[in-house]
């Protein structure tokens, strides 16, 4: 185990996770009537949590790998069942934790005046919810994760059920039962893993090590069990119908948290648990997930275009945006996965912000129907700018955060088309009896997906996902035009007030983040790089094999062959011109060539025909790598 060797340090993760809960407990003793004190206290707690989480950011070492291995807090908990209290963080969960703590004070601020009744309970529910979310992002023990996962459910249930709109009961029950139904399946999966491996551990790293012993059939069923829980949370088409109802009925703060953080737990679950625990199943089902999420992108976009209620519109847009994230996850390339994680954060900022904006309007006008607005840009220009920036961010205009995420996902998915893959998925024979007819279409007869098939699938998925960029612009700009532009007709709209100082405290950080991620995403990407590349390498080991087999010198970005600069013409490095040979100028094989050649090698190996323009004699360098690759297997 080696748990005892964990360096002792200040338990910052535990502090951050439980600070909101502590705040909630402390608030119990504050009398109900002191609304100002209550609000101030909740704001203070969340702000303190955010400040504390900045220390996580500072202490986080991006050069370290390992799943949730950093800043780990460990304690033995229920010894009999080998359940451990184990929190940790890595590049993947880091930004989600930061997003959660960042949204904390913003959520409280945005509902400063919106909640008129039962304020104390409201704030307590929000704080407990925050602890649940933070715990779910940091928990490393599957059982602990499950507890946090369910802990989130109850405050959200109350938030929608008590402070929601007209149909809040229907919405909240639907939300609760839907999510619960999924998580039960996950619980079964967790327990199966636990029992299967002798009831010794719930710890994710241990389970990952042992998960290799699972047969592909087991992996598939377990993945489906976990996957449905996550897919409902994401929500992936066709498990999404709870979302519009929940969003529409939830109070502003509830919507912001729901869209901002809660939905990410689904996608995070896929990345955190689905990918490392069941890599073979994921690779096998990736086309299915891709198809569902691509369809979700288009479908969600189309539906949100015809919504009359702004909040419903944004809710359906979440279906579309999280479809992007899921495409990125299913593509399994490093670029796409980075984009997916970044897009989770982006969606939290932009859609969270959009819900805040809608809440701002709703609080004053008590309507969310698009037709009740119009021409607001004249009346509330600051708000118009705020909404415009969020709109642009959410449709992925370059320079804003949305672009980086969406672009990386789309381009990364296309990369899948160019990364030839070892054609084995799972162990041959394992899978055959389970899905023979299915396998025939998508996979080769050896049970592996052909290079060519995966190229086509991810290429088509990338192209269709790109369609989401267009459709997103259509519904968001239509909404913006109908709400903000045109003549200012109704009298009530003429009395709207613009953002005040407090609203600016909400709006400005969001806007700054939109541009920060858009213009300098490296700060964010840099922290997650190591974790993401480790994960993708784990899921697709052939990627690492290729990287190992290449001479690192050739991986430099230098393209031309001739570094000395003596080559008179830019000649073909594989077949240098005679003049160069005479002069003895040596050419290096550029990286692109290497990769193309590798593609050929793989194609030859798998006896599949890839259309290549030219037959080449393999250069010596490659011949050796080819043998090492074989040897390394």
């Amino acid at each position: 185990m080696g748990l005892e060797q964990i360096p002792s340090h200040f338990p910052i993760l535990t502090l951050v996770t439980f600070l909101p809960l502590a705040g909630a407990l402390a608030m119990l003793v504050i009398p109900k009537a002191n609304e100002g004190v209550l609000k101030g206290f909740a704001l203070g707690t969340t702000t303190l949590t955010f400040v504390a989480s900045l220390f996580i950011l500072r202490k986080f070492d991006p050069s370290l790998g390992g799943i949730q291995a950093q800043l780990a807090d460990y304690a033995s908990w229920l010894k009999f069942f080998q359940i451990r209290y184990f929190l940790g963080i890595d590049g993947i969960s880091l930004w989600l934790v930061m997003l959660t703590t960042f949204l904390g004070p913003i959520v409280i601020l945005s509902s400063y005046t919106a909640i008129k009744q039962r304020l104390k309970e409201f704030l307590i529910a929000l704080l407990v919810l925050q602890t649940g979310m933070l715990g779910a992002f940091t928990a490393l023990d599957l059982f602990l994760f499950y507890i946090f996962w369910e802990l989130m459910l109850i405050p959200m249930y109350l938030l929608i059920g008590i402070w929601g709109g007209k149909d809040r009961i229907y919405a909240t029950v639907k939300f609760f039962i839907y999510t619960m139904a999924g998580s039960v399946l996950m619980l079964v999966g967790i327990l199966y893993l636990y029992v299967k491996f002798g009831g010794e551990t719930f710890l994710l790293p241990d389970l990952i090590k042992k998960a290799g012993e699972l047969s592909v059939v087991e992996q598939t069923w377990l993945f489906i069990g976990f996957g449905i829980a996550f897919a409902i949370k994401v929500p992936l088409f066709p498990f999404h119908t709870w979302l519009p109802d929940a969003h529409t009925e939830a109070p502003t703060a509830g919507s912001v948290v729901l869209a901002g953080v809660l939905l990410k737990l689904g996608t995070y679950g896929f990345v955190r648990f689905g990918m490392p625990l069941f890599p073979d199943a994921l690779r096998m089902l990736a086309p299915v997930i891709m198809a569902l999420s691509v369809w979700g992108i288009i479908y969600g976009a189309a539906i949100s275009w015809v919504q009359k209620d702004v909040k419903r519109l944004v809710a359906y847009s979440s279906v579309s945006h999280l479809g992007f994230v899921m495409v990125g996850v299913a593509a399994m390339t490093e670029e796409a996965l980075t984009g997916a994680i970044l897009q989770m954060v982006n969606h939290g900022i932009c859609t969270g912000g959009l819900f805040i904006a809608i809440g701002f309007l709703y609080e004053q006008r008590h309507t969310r129907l698009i037709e009740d607005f119009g021409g607001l840009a004249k009346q509330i220009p600051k708000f118009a700018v705020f909404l415009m920036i969020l709109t642009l961010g959410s449709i992925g205009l370059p320079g804003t955060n949305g672009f980086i995420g969406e672009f990386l996902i789309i381009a990364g998915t296309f990369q899948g088309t160019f990364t030839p893959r070892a054609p084995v998925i799972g162990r041959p024979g394992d899978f055959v009896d389970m899905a023979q007819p299915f396998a025939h279409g998508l996979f080769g007869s050896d049970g592996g997906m052909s290079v060519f098939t995966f190229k086509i699938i991810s290429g088509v998925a990338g192209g269709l996902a790109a369609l989401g960029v267009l459709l997103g612009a259509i519904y968001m700009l239509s909404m913006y035009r109908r709400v903000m532009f045109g003549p200012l007709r109704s009298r009530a709209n003429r009395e709207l007030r613009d953002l005040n100082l407090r609203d600016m405290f909400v709006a400005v950080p969001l806007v700054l983040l939109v541009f920060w991620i858009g213009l300098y995403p490296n700060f964010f990407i840099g922290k997650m790089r190591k974790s993401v590349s480790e994960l993708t390498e784990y899921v697709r080991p052939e990627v690492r094999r290729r990287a190992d087999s290449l001479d690192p010198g050739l991986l430099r970005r230098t393209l031309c062959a001739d570094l000395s600069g003596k080559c008179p013409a830019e000649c073909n490095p594989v077949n240098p011109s005679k003049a160069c040979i005479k002069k003895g100028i040596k050419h290096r094989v550029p990286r692109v060539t290497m990769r193309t050649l590798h593609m050929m090698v793989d194609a030859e190996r798998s006896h599949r025909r890839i259309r290549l323009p030219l037959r080449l004699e393999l250069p010596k360098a490659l011949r050796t790598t080819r043998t090492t690759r074989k040897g390394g297997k």
Partner: protein
Amino acid sequence: MSNTALLSSIVLLPLLGALINGLFAGRLPRRVVEVIACSTVIVSFLFSLKAFLQLMALPVGAREIHAHLYNWVAVGNFRFDVAFYLDPLSSMMSLIITGVGGLIHVYSAGYMSHDPSYGRYFSYLNLFTFSMLSLVLGNNILLMFLGWEGVGLCSYLLIGFWFTDVQKAKAGKKAFIVNRIGDLAFIVGVGLLLGLADGNLDFTYLRKVTALRTLYLDPMMVKGICLAFFIGATGKSAQIPLYVWLPDAMAGPTPVSALIHAATMVTAGIYMIARLNFMYALAPEVLTLIAGVGAATALFAATIGIVQRDIKKVLAYSTVSQLGYMFLAVGMGAYTAAMFHLMTHAFFKACLFLGSGSVIHSLHGEQDIIKMGGLRKKMPVTALTFLTATMAISGVPLFAGFFSKDEILWKAFTNAHAGMTTVYWGKIFFVVGLIAALCTAFYMFRLYFLTFEGEYRGPKETEKTIHESPVSMTLALVVLAFLSVVGGYVQIGFAHVHLLEDWLAPVFAVGSLNVVETMGHSWEYATMAMSVAIAGVGIGAAYYLYMGAGTKIPARMMEAAPRLYNFVWNKYKIDELYQVVFVGTYRSFAHFSHRFADAFVIDFLGVRGTGALAQGIGRVIGRLQNGDVQRYLVVFVVGLTLILYLWLQ
């Protein structure tokens, strides 16, 4: 001043202006706003000039200036920098953008002086300049795409500048969305290209890759990428089939039309293809397609322009048509000719738009040319500059447009490359271009005659208030008119020295490798003669029909073929067609998804159906639990008996 500082200040100064004007929009006095907006662009122009001179000083083969700011995105295989790259092509573009842009900024100070949202306007305009500069100066495709979408955004904001008018807001949205269709293809192209180029999108790198490794690249893939980029270009540069947004974009303030929808933004597509000429050299079939689309657009838009009555609409269709010429040139592999026409077009079309703006300004928003006339006496400067630019666009010899358009037609006539199944394609494009030139000369002079000659046909009371525009506006007109006269001489061939061609030659070196001239040089004079004759016919016809003896004929023609007239007048009903085919289909799909698929199938049958099923089962089973203890006991005994029976077997 270091290269980095120089290039980045060219790009970032307008951004600074935009930020200042945007953040303090309401609080700065007009004069300050004006000074900030104009000075940033003008200083940027001066820097561009300096950079241009620096570039000139370098030896011909090494005319490149790099400026690396910071690493933008680095993930996995991908690595994109925020870095600028100045070469002859981008230098030329930056000069046009900042130069024409500066003039239009100055002009706007006069034109928009009465508008309440003065600061917002200049903020947008500066932001546009920034975006356009990062488009042309970005050293990789992604940064170019940032500018590409940025100009789209500014176009959206500026078209819908007077957003209280629903039509204008809609026009802005339409522009953005139609552009996005192109951008979608652009993104797909980038995604595909990234795979071929190993995650590096630097132009210099790509050029070397393609130059070096034509052998390794999958030709189909390259063609696909080039096609995708071209579709992107049709969106931005308003070509068939995505040109529909540009005429509507005239809803914006006229200086905006001049800057964005005539001089700079719409030429981004041409710039992009010219920039990527080395890739298009590998996809000659796509080049032929580009030429075909360009020629078709040139003719198509010109025919619509003949019957339009809105002064800005005529100019808009004329812009579409002229862009078609540029694409024709690009498609024929005549990149220099395209860039040449791009430059002269920027001059004379900006001049025309600003002239029309001057007219509209003094007529208080009147845009219908039927209600104008005789304005030459009231607004001599405007009329003179307008006439100059009209002569330039119509191809009157010795004006700028003459040289550039002639070069395009000549190249179409004589060039050939691998993508043409037959050399006759070029001849066909030439003939189409010639007809379009005829139309152009005709409708431009029709526009001029109807607006500035003859008698005033508008309401009497407005006639008195017609006045020449202020100096800030006419200054720009004069400068641009001057440029539309002399602009053509940069390319005129004295003793085999073509200034522009020599300047741009290193950029297009790869692209023009595969292009051959099938005819001798002397044919240039033949085509020149033809185009002059055609221009003469067009001008003559316009004079005859609108000034001379035949003034009744247009009306009679209208009556003779009302259907044809209406069909053309309604722009061939393309908008309506798109509305039905695309918007309608999408809308039905959306409604179907919403009402049927989502609300009924998934939610009602699926989700609530599951709930109802559970409830139903519960209700059935619940009847067993009716509280009758004796029944419980019987059930219990039955169960016990069964267990005993099974257990004791």
